[in-house]
């Protein structure tokens, strides 16, 4: 039977039915609606004030490509200027291809691009080198922890290099849903307490971060990229299959089959979680070495790098086992320092995350 009319413009044939409402729309109207929704999220949540210099974390994947494209369309209305920041983790066969996609996008959209590499920032430690180092300890999962933490630092460094005032990343509703499922399964009360909003305001000198696509489902992001004919890189990280996020992702797919609004329901649950004050992470201070935001004496990035340098890559992963720095400052005895502090600073990887970790923590 022929496709129905677009219910918005009533002129063209409908090209899709929106997953969230079942409404039939043509490609152009869908894209307009999508952009309007992102605009509304940014404005209602007051995420990007006029005059902000916004660093877009670009990995070459579908989410950051769509994010950059939409923000570029909305930039005049919001009154912000954009810079692309790409992170090169040094994963051979994966990151170089993704970076090529980012370079093409930057050229096409005429946006300034800055690439920050782990090799430059972290003393020659690329992810491949880290993986070789941790492989010896028998757990290849550990390299994902490093990637998440170091990428955060790298993004922050890159944003400062270009003089940005805000950082945006392309996390979508499915990512946030997987995150809350994963955090419950892992028992990470610290992250659960911190998550749920649209981003973090940026405490202690860290730049404010936000996720404008947080309320858009993954299907709609892909559809948008399709209708706007965007060029992106869609392969999975070579280290991804080991990550725990894969379980949460699989579960989310099953849930969406049973109930289409599952991802947004999970996001709503995450927004409304109430955790005990003792479970929340302690207020962060500054790292004694690099000055970045840290819950202990050394920020997690410095602690991890320390471990790598000394040939003991497992140092600082786990229950606060850093034997190196000064003892942590005395804090409220009710807040469990071990797991909460480790949780506060430890990174966690995402499978198929296309280069950016879906944990929007410090």
């Amino acid at each position, binding site marked *: 039977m022929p496709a129905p009319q677009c219910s918005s413009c009533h002129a063209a044939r409908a090209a899709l039915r929106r997953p969230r409402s079942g409404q039939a729309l043509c490609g152009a109207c869908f894209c307009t609606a999508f952009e309007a929704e992102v605009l509304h999220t940014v404005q209602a949540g007051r995420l990007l004030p006029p005059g902000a210099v916004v660093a877009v974390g670009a990995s070459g994947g579908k989410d950051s490509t769509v994010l950059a494209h939409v923000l570029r369309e909305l930039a005049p209305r919001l009154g912000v200027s954009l810079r692309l920041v790409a992170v090169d983790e040094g994963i051979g066969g994966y990151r170089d291809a993704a970076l090529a996609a980012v370079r093409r996008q930057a050229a096409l959209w005429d946006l300034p691009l800055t690439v920050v590499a782990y090799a430059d920032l972290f003393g020659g430690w690329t992810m491949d080198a880290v993986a070789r180092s941790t492989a010896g300890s028998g757990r290849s999962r550990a390299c994902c922890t490093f990637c998440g933490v170091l990428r955060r630092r790298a993004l922050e460094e890159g944003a400062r290099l270009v003089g940005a005032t805000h950082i945006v990343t392309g996390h979508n509703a499915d990512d946030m849903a997987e995150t809350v499922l994963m955090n419950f399964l892992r028992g990470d009360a610290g992250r659960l307490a911190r998550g749920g909003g649209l981003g973090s305001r940026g405490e202690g000198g860290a730049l404010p971060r936000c996720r404008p696509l947080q309320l858009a489902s993954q299907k709609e992001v892909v559809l948008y990229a399709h209708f706007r004919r965007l060029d992106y890189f869609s392969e999975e990280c070579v280290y991804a299959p080991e990550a725990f996020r894969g379980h949460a992702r699989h579960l989310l797919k099953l849930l969406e089959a049973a109930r289409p609004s599952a991802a947004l329901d999970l996001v709503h*649950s995450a927004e409304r979680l109430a955790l005990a004050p003792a479970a929340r992470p302690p207020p962060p201070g500054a790292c004694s070495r690099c000055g970045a935001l840290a819950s202990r004496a050394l920020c997690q990035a410095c602690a991890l790098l320390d471990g790598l340098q000394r040939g003991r890559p497992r140092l600082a992963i786990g229950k606060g086992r850093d034997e190196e720095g000064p003892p942590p400052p005395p804090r409220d005895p009710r807040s469990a320092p071990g797991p909460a502090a480790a949780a506060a600073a430890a990174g966690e990887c995402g499978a198929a995350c296309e280069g950016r970790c879906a944990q929007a923590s410090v």
Partner: protein
Amino acid sequence: MCQVGEDYGDPVPEGPPPPRPGRELRCVKCKDGLPVVVIRAGDAFCRDCFRAFYVHKFRAVLGKNRLIFPGEKVLLAWSGGPSSSSMVWQVLEGLSRDSAKRLRFVPGVVYVDEGAACGQSWENRAKTLAEVKLILRSFGFPWHIVALEEVFTLPPSVLRCSAQEPVGTEGTYKVAVDSFLQQQHTVGSSPSPTQQEEQLSQPCTQDPQDPAGPPPAAHIEALSRLFDSVKTLTAKEELLQTLRGHLLLHVARTHGYSKVMTGDSCTRLAIKLMTSLALGRGAFLAWDTGFSDERHGDVVVVRPMREHTLKEVAFYNRLFAVPSIFTPAIDTKAPEKASIHRLMEGFLLRLQAQFPSTVSTVYRTSEKLVKAPRDGCAAGPRCLLCMCSLDVDTADSATAFGAQTQDFSQTQPPTPLAEAGAAPMPCCSAEVGRAQKCCQSTLLCRREDSQVIEQLCYGCRVNMKDVPSLDSLPPYILAEAQFRSQRYELAPMLGECRWVLLGVCMCRAGSQCVASPQALAGYPGVSG
């Protein structure tokens, strides 16, 4: 698994180490007896130590929380399944101990017959009921059998929260226990146990709540119609749980029980937690899965089996011959992908097989949840069905709820009219207009339906989307919905603010707000 705080140094445990050949395993507790069951990650217990461990856990959970006062009437919700049977058995044993360690409350048992919702014929249900009665009589407590069809005769007051009694503090609990013991002393040492036995044995001979025959055919038909009309199994299960909860509350209130004990085990609660998360009930997890659930005010739901895993329950029931019966539930024989509950159950149990600490990790996280709205809002109106404070805020549109209730696919370019907080919105029309955008379809839903839906929390709204016609809901729900919305309409005349009634703390009418200053005083950030 990538658990927080996990020690990456040790290799992945392969499972409990196999017993070394030529050397018998001994119980890890008494080091003497032959083990009969392995619990947790490799602890082998002998029969007596296992029994002591199991009973001790039950008593410890009750004793630690100090919510059940001596002499209090407690209703045990028994479904016939293993966990609730085990719970009733524990209470039975606990009451028959010598006086120092005896449980001190007065129990009753209730069984809810849900056959009509599961599509069973009356003959099958009657057979099951006969078996149920046999077991109930053998317990020796006052017992009640209620059919789910009785929801059609419930009064709307079931949905109203009674004035809350102050929760007993440490001091009052001790005082109550001391006075109870003193009372027993003055009466005399031996008569009191028999007194209590007499009290318990009397109702059994009278068969207090024996339903004479099947419930009225109209009710059976109405119930079947309601459940058949629900489109998804997820919504059916949620509706069944809601109705069952209301029915239990009614039974407890009618017969003067102030506590209801349900037999949810650790495994079931972990599954329930993840399911509630996926259903959008993140705000109410502490009530849904905590030890005590005080949302009804006068009747508190208590979960004493929450630290026992299903494996322990199953082994205990087998080793000590605890009677239980099997009744088909609404999701028996349903495929795994049929509902969110089944999916979560399958997922968690599979993950548990791979990483043995999954269930206990989820359970531990659930203990860190608190019963408070996230942003510290004062108590607003309650959801019509689940009676938790509403967690939807129509004013804040940069949320998952806001994203689903907005429609941006207009032909004209979107005007930035929805900038929250930019201009104060008038109390009346904008709110009603927003409230009616309750369903996602562009068809206008009927006024009566929208009346019900706007009084529901997020999770209940999503469930009700799968119920095509809200008219088939039992009359007490519809009556209460109408009553509340009439009160909403009359609010300005009564000097109450509609925003307050709908749970939105920030009254945006400013100086035009009709509410009395006292009503508004408790709400943060209110102007005028």
